[in-house]
C-alpha cells in the first residue's frame, strides 16, 4: 500500500511535530499560569509570608496559629463551618489564636470567583461576615451559577457589602491572580484536601479532630 516511498514518513514527521508543538505550548502555558507570580494585587489583610493567606491576629505573640485551607464550594467545608465556624470567629475576636484562611479553588471557576469576592470583602473589613454568608448559602452542586459574579454581588448584599468598590472588585476579578498564588502555595505545602487544618504548622488528626467540636477546641487550646 505504500505508494510513494518516503511520502508517509514526511506526513508522519509533520504530524508528530505539530502534535508535539501543541502539547509543549499547552504544557508550558499550563505550568506558567498555575505558578505563583510576584507582585500580584492583594488585600492588606493578606500576608505573602503566610502563604498568601487571609490573616487575623497576625501580631499576637504566644498564641497558637491555626491555618485553614478551604474551598467555598466544598460541601464538607460547609459542614466544618457549621460545626466550628463560630468557634473560629471567637478565637479571632477573643484574641486566642492567630487564624489564617487559605482559600483554595480546586472545584472550578466559581471557587475562584468566590475566593476573589472574599478578598474584596476583606478590603472592607467584612471577610468573616462574607465567609459565613457564603457557607450558609452554599449550592448543592458545583459551578451551578450561584457564585457567578452576579450571585456573589447578591451574597455581598446579604453580608452588608454594597459599595461600588466591592462591585467592581468582584466583576473585574481584581484578586484573581492572588487566588492562583494561594493555590500554588497550598500545592507547595502538600494540601490535598479541603478542609485541611494545621495547628502550629502540623495537620490535626483527620479521623478525630475535624468534626468533633470538643476535640477541635482541645487541639487548639490544649
Amino acid at each position: 500500500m505504500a505508494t510513494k516511498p518516503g511520502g508517509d514518513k514526511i506526513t508522519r514527521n509533520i504530524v508528530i511535530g505539530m502534535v508535539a508543538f501543541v502539547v509543549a505550548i499547552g504544557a508550558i502555558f499550563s505550568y506558567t499560569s498555575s505558578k505563583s507570580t510576584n507582585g500580584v494585587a492583594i488585600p492588606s489583610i493578606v500576608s505573602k509570608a503566610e502563604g498568601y493567606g487571609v490573616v487575623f491576629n497576625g501580631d499576637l505573640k504566644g498564641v497558637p496559629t491555626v491555618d485553614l485551607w478551604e474551598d467555598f464550594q466544598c460541601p464538607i467545608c460547609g459542614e466544618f463551618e457549621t460545626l466550628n465556624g463560630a468557634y473560629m470567629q471567637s478565637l479571632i475576636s477573643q484574641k486566642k489564636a492567630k487564624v489564617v484562611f487559605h482559600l483554595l479553588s480546586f472545584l472550578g471557576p466559581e471557587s475562584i470567583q468566590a475566593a476573589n469576592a472574599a478578598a474584596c470583602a476583606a478590603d472592607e473589613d467584612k471577610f468573616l461576615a462574607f465567609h459565613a454568608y457564603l457557607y450558609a448559602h452554599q449550592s448543592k452542586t458545583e459551578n451551578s451559577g450561584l457564585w457567578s459574579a452576579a450571585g456573589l454581588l447578591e451574597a455581598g448584599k446579604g453580608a452588608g457589602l454594597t459599595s461600588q468598590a466591592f462591585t467592581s472588585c468582584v466583576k473585574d476579578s481584581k484578586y484573581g491572580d492572588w487566588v492562583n498564588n494561594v493555590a500554588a502555595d497550598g500545592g507547595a505545602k502538600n494540601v490535598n484536601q479541603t478542609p485541611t487544618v494545621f495547628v502550629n504548622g502540623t495537620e490535626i488528626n483527620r479521623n478525630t479532630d475535624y468534626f468533633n467540636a470538643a476535640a477541635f477546641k482541645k487541639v487548639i487550646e490544649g
Partner: protein
Amino acid sequence: MKKYFPWFGLLARLILGGVLITAGYLKAFNPSKAKMAVRAYEVLPIALANILGVLLPWVELGVGFLLILGVATRFTARFTALLMFVFIIAIGQAWARGLSIDCGCFGGGGQVDPSQTKYLPEIGRDIAFILISYFLIRYPTSRFALEKEDQ
C-alpha cells in the same frame, strides 16, 4: 479473521485515543487539581509531583491525538501500555499502603473516604487498556490511519 484485523486496529485506536483525550482534557484545564491528584499518591517529592500533574494531561492529549490520527501507531501504543503500567503500579502501591485516594484518572483525585476507593476497578480498567495496546503493538496496521504502513 486476520483480514478484519485492520478494523479491530481502528477500533483499538479510537478507544485508546478517545480515553486518553478525555482523560487529558478533563485535567489539563484545572492544573491545581491535577497537581493535587499526583501529590496524593505520596510517591514523588512534592515539587516533582506538581510538575508531573501539569505535564501528564498534555502528554495524554498528544498521544491520544496521534492514536486517533493513526500516526506512529506502534510507538504510541507502546507508550500507552507503558503509561497504563505505571498507573497500575501507582494505584497498586496506594492500595497496598492503605492510602484512600481517588486515582484522579479523569479529573478529580486526591484523598477520599476509605469507602469510596475503587482500586480494583481502576486497575482492571488499566489492564484492559494494556491488552488493547498490545493488539496495536502486534498489528499496528489499521484502517483510516494517516500513516498507511507502520514500519
